[in-house]
């Protein structure tokens, strides 16, 4: 099974030895190109128009980075391990409320607390995963929805954290032109971290085990994989960068309300992005997140109505499932048209 999976993945370094030098060189040039792209992203806020005015571009890019982090993290459990979670926004809310609460009451900046919020989400993921991962298939999905709704009730009624009225977080003490910049860098780092984590998991023995679980859990168990521990680890690990992103996003909203985080639409977007881009691939969630964020912006500016946007999201999800179940990356790979720059598996 391991061979089968490795072959299916098309990893350049695992191709026959005769082709290896060429493959390695291509991977090298791909990594160089990607590094350049990241470098350009780091320089964007330094450009003149961004520094002088409140930047819409910066805001959109920050949003895109956040969704890249969320969808890539979701992909670890939902893509690699094949356990679809519709409750991953609980991590987002937990991260936001933890960092926001610490900031509001103790004055420690969410930028410092973000990694701690991530670790808290790993802990939360371990506890919750130990319960919900006793089930599988549809029952697992149901349990994650229930988890989300329990969290919603909890936060709606937790008066210390503002309840359903919300908790206001002190404003960042910067000029309006600059106020988006720290969030931009924070989210960019978060997105890079999440994609890197996803990449490392994909290329590890752990990731191989997860994909074996997705293929056939019983066979994976027979092959000696501790499926339960693997699944719980994947669930917990997927919480880390969602927690970090939640801490930053909550701060950037300046106001935490349960309904900003804990609606099924938020959970749906995460799943939609991973599926549209290509589940169980490294590049898929990134592409999916960029496409969906761009689409949402266009659709909201065209219709100015989030209800129509919601309806289109639903139709897109159905269309993707029926016609492109493998997503952009998967569909391109099947046709052998996937550009090497996007082949991160």
């Amino acid at each position, binding site marked *: 099974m391991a061979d089968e999976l490795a072959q299916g993945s098309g990893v350049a370094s695992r191709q026959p030895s005769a082709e290896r030098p060429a493959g390695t060189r291509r991977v090298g040039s791909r990594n160089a190109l990607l590094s350049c792209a990241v470098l350009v992203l780091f320089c964007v806020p330094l450009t003149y128009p961004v520094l002088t005015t409140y930047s819409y571009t910066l805001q959109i890019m920050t949003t895109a980075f956040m969704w890249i982090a969320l969808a890539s993290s979701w992909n670890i459990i939902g893509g690699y391990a*094949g356990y*679809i979670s*519709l409750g991953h926004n609980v991590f987002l809310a937990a991260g936001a409320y933890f960092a926001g609460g610490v900031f509001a009451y103790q004055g420690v900046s969410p930028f410092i607390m973000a990694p701690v919020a991530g670790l808290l989400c790993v802990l939360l993921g371990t506890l919750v995963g130990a*319960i*919900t991962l*006793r*089930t*599988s*298939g*549809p*029952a697992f*999905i*149901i*349990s994650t*929805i*229930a988890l989300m*709704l*329990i969290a919603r*009730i909890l936060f*709606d*009624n937790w008066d210390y954290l503002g309840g359903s009225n919300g908790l206001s977080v002190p404003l960042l003490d910067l000029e309006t032109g600059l106020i988006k910049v720290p969030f931009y860098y924070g989210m960019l780092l978060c997105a890079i971290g999440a994609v890197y984590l996803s990449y490392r998991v994909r290329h590890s023995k752990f990731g191989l085990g997860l994909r074996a679980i997705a293929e056939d859990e019983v066979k994976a168990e027979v092959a000696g994989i501790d499926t339960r521990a693997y699944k719980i680890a994947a669930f917990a690990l997927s919480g880390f960068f969602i927690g970090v992103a939640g801490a930053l996003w909550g701060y950037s909203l300046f106001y935490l309300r349960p309904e900003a985080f804990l*609606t*099924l*639409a938020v959970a*749906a977007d995460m*799943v939609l992005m991973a*599926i549209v881009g290509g589940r169980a691939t490294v590049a898929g969630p990134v592409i999916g997140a960029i496409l969906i964020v761009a689409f949402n912006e266009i659709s909201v500016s065209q219709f100015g*109505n989030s*209800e*129509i*946007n*919601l*309806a*289109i*999201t*639903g*139709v*897109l*999800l*159905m269309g993707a*499932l*029926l016609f492109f*179940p493998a997503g952009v990356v998967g569909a391109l790979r099947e046709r052998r048209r996937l550009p090497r720059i996007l082949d991160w598996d």
Partner: protein
Amino acid sequence: MTNAIQIAVLGVLLGGVYALMASGLTMIYGVMQIINLAHGAFMIVAAYVAFFLYRDSGIDPFLSILITAPAFFVAGLIVYTLLFSRLVDSPRFGEMTVLLSFGLALALEGSLGAGFSGIYHRSDVSYSTSTWDIGSIFIPKGQAYGFVACLGLFGLLWAFLNLTRPGYAIRATMQNRGAAQVVGVNVTRISTIAFGIGAALAGAAGSLMSFLFTFHPAAHWQWIALLLSLIVVGGLGSLAGVFVAGIGLAVVAAFATDWLSPTWSYLTFYLALFIVLLVRPQGLFGKAATI
């Protein structure tokens, strides 16, 4: 004591309605292993239909069942044929259909929201606010009528499943899909019909919902979460289970509301769901292999 009896009576009346709402969901799962997350959205759409029929044409919500149920039966056939049947050969059928119905639910919610805004609706029929007083206990007429209608529909469903040939075929498919196919059941056709019946039950439940509860486009998430709790607690695919779980949990929730606060009403269902998943994942009446 009278207070406890009062709460129990209200819980039972509500539970009967819950059971009817969840019956279509559990039957669709039983026959096809599809968790139809759009079931709640179907109910809300039906509730809108019933609401407008009552407001504009004066058709009583109970009579509108005769319109919503057949209409949703047909809609169910179409939805199954156009959407779900395409995934039958998919290796990950279970989760693909969950996501597909999730998309359908979002699409329906968004369309309703765009068409009718998020305003809360409820049909104000005369019996929805009047009661019978028996000693110190009161029985709301609307809820009582609704409960009776649910028992009636449950009876019809039972009769259909136990006394007609398509009913036999559906039960056979629920028990063992492969074996049913071997003895000559056209599983594809039975699946389509079962989905239609499930949708028709959602339509009937929507008619009742239009005067029993306030509803708005986004309300279906609350409902589907509650109904999923019921069908998991009752055992996925078990109609008897969903009846017992519906009434049992509604009574527990009614007491939780009285002793603690209304917040706990919904928590009761979700906590029951988690406890069942932990202790007895197959549910009260479920077969161990169904999950």
